[in-house]
């Protein structure tokens, strides 16, 4: 089994206390290429902000936590589901894509 590559790592983060975003059509930014990622934002029930990361770059949990924390601090949004497919992007690129995704939310929707 050790000769088959290790699988995708899945990480989940959730945040509360954000301002609920008005209903919106799903937003997608980025592409899943080497050193890159795609970020999808979808409207979700409830007031929380749920972030799910699926990444081929395993073992960076604490860094993803920090990036997610920073993201929520910049954009304290609620009623949103954030889904990421990542292929080894740097924290800077991840943060950029998250910001780009939020920027595509309808006017007045984001914090």
């Amino acid at each position: 089994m050790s000769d088959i590559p290790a699988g995708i790592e899945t990480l989940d983060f959730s945040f509360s206390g954000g301002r609920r975003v008005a209903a919106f059509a799903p937003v997608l930014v980025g592409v899943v290429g080497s050193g890159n990622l795609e970020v999808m934002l979808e409207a979700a029930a409830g007031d929380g902000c749920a972030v799910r990361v699926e990444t081929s770059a395993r073992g960076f949990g604490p860094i993803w936590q920090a990036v997610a924390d920073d993201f929520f601090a910049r954009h304290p949004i609620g009623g949103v589901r954030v889904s990421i497919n990542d292929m080894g992007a740097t924290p800077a690129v991840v943060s950029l894509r998250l910001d780009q995704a939020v920027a595509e939310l309808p006017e007045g929707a984001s914090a």
Partner: protein
Amino acid sequence: MISFAECSARERLALLLDARSFHEWIPPSERLTSPHLVQLGVPSAFDDGVAIGRAKLDGHEVFVAAQEGAFMGGGVGEVHGAKLVGMLQRALRDRPAAVLLLAESGGVRLHEANAGLIAVSEVMRAVLDVRAAGIPVVVLIGGANGCFGGMGIVARCADFIVMSDVGRLAMSGPEVIEASHGVEEYDSRDRALVWRTSGGKHRWLTGDCDALVEDDVQAFRAAAMAAIQRSCPVTLEGLEAEHALLETRLHLLPLETDGADAATWLWRELGIDQPERVPELDVGAVRTLRTA
């Protein structure tokens, strides 16, 4: 000018089609992803690397697919291929004015091997079905990854191909040929050689594409608008003419050119004046050179 090559597949759709006219089928939020990649530790894409749907082009209803070259090189896997087949089968049923395929692909997605190979063949059959039904299939090739492998065959099954000089259309990638027969056979790092062998200017001069445009989204849009006007069903007469053309061309290029560049040799044989200047000419100038 907006570079077609530098746009993502979705950006190309947004800019090339009539504004806000693209309606996607099985969008990313449906998460129809590859069942095969996860076991290899490779990330999936929510749309498995291809966006399909209906749209308007200059007011005409078209069905369209755009492959994302940055994801797995645009390679065709089981889901990706089935989305293309679904779009093509829907075209047979709903009869849009045309089908547009924004092709950027290495061909079969090797990570899905057998499933990808069968998928490409199903796409090929479906393209030929749509063509036979009199609905023009127009392929646009202008991405940095080019259109290779099984998709290079599929492209030539369509009614019409638009290429930019940046685009490439071929079968095997230069690296595979170099790995097989050595750097003297094909130096994959010689970009000028690669583009003389497979790039838009070469394919235009040999007639392997039907329109040559600059690397500009609006130029692709204009060429697509013209291309969807006409369908070219496959006929026995057409195939005989194609056969004669390919036979003639085969004999224009000797097996041994003693180090002379093969593409330049072929262009000279096709009657192109000062063929060695082709790579430095702009697209407009190259367009006027084609003799056939």
